[in-house]
């Protein structure tokens, strides 16, 4: 018997109207026991409301049972921004949120998506409540530290006196030798600079980690402009520790060759 054919490439706009809004798109979880509407503030102006159960509330909008997909960066960017704005305003309103990743969609069970969300809140109640308590009142800050690449080279040269000898050899009058020693010098210098960067990163990490409740090391990005990014850190900070972190950042700003960027506060996206 032939199985019914199933379209494997569904697009967001192709969903039949009947089950168009059967699922729930979930933004975040807060502590609240009242169901309420927040108005048309969601992705593409969808109405966001609270599905509450046993003291926990999930902020959702009724959504097609499909992930948001866009090939256009601008549209994707607008969706992610709308997601962030809902989480951010919930964070300001309730004080503590458990943000979920963009495109978290709960499919409907036999009795509808809101019931599925309720069942999830029930099943994960202790886990979610524990996480909310751990994040209570805390905010996320991003700290990025970069330094002048030339500063790193100077430090690396000072720490590796052998490199000076290679520099002499690289000036050899013999063409083939000069070429090979120059290549060697480049390799050794690159390794020394990387080692220096790693040592400085570790020092900075130690200093900043001591000022935060929790941290996540993010991948460093190419800084360009003669700069090398040494540390890209997400910090979870409670209000009473914020001044300490700001002071540490201020202290780094005063150090030669370093530039520091601190952004936030954000909802604790990196600590869920």
């Amino acid at each position, binding site marked *: 018997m032939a199985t019914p054919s199933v379209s494997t490439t569904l697009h967001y706009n192709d969903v039949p109207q009947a089950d168009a809004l059967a699922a729930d798109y979930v933004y975040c979880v807060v502590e609240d026991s009242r169901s309420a509407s927040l108005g048309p503030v969601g992705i593409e102006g969808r109405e966001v409301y609270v599905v509450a159960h046993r003291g926990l509330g999930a902020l959702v909008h009724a959504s097609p049972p499909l*992930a*948001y*997909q*866009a*090939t256009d*960066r601008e*549209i*994707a*960017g607008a*969706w*992610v921004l709308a997601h962030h704005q809902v989480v951010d305003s919930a964070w300001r309103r309730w004080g503590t949120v458990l943000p*979920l*990743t*963009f*495109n*978290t*969609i709960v499919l409907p069970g036999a009795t509808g998506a809101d019931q599925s969300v309720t069942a999830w809140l029930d099943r994960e109640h202790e886990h979610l409540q524990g996480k909310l308590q751990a994040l209570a009142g805390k905010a996320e800050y991003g700290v990025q530290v970069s330094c002048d690449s030339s500063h790193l080279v100077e430090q690396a040269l000072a720490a590796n006196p052998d490199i000076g000898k290679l520099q002499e050899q690289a000036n050899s009058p*013999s*063409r*083939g*030798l*000069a*070429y*090979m020693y120059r*290549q*060697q010098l480049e*390799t050794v210098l690159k390794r020394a600079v990387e080692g220096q960067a790693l040592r400085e990163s570790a020092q900075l990490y130690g200093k900043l980690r001591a000022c935060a409740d929790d941290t996540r090391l993010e991948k460093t990005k190419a800084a360009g402009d003669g700069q090398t990014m040494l540390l890209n850190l997400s910090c979870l900070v409670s209000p009473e520790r914020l001044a300490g972190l700001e002071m540490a950042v201020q202290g780094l700003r005063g150090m030669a060759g370093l530039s520091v960027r601190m952004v936030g506060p954000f909802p604790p996206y990196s600590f869920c």
Partner: protein
Amino acid sequence: MILDLSEQDLKSGVLGLVVALVEIIEEALRLQALRRMEAGSLSLAEIERLGQALSELEGAIERLKAETGSTESVKAVRDSLDKAVADAVGSLLDPYRWDRAQLEVGYGNS
């Protein structure tokens, strides 16, 4: 998908690919030579000969790129190769990167 290629595009594409490969081979030879130098298994005369050969090869590649105007297409091939390797290695070492990459282009199912 309809391929829309001019003869000129095709030529510069193939040339870019070939020169990029020659460049990569030259770099591999140079790395090997440096390794042997550091291990102390080469005499000064051998280092001199290797250095001359490699620097001539490097000069020849640069001239070829300048004469054929293929500097840009070689760079494009190398960049896309670098990115492919970095992505493959990155996703092996850090599976979460897939999530983030998907989030950045706005799709994915978590």
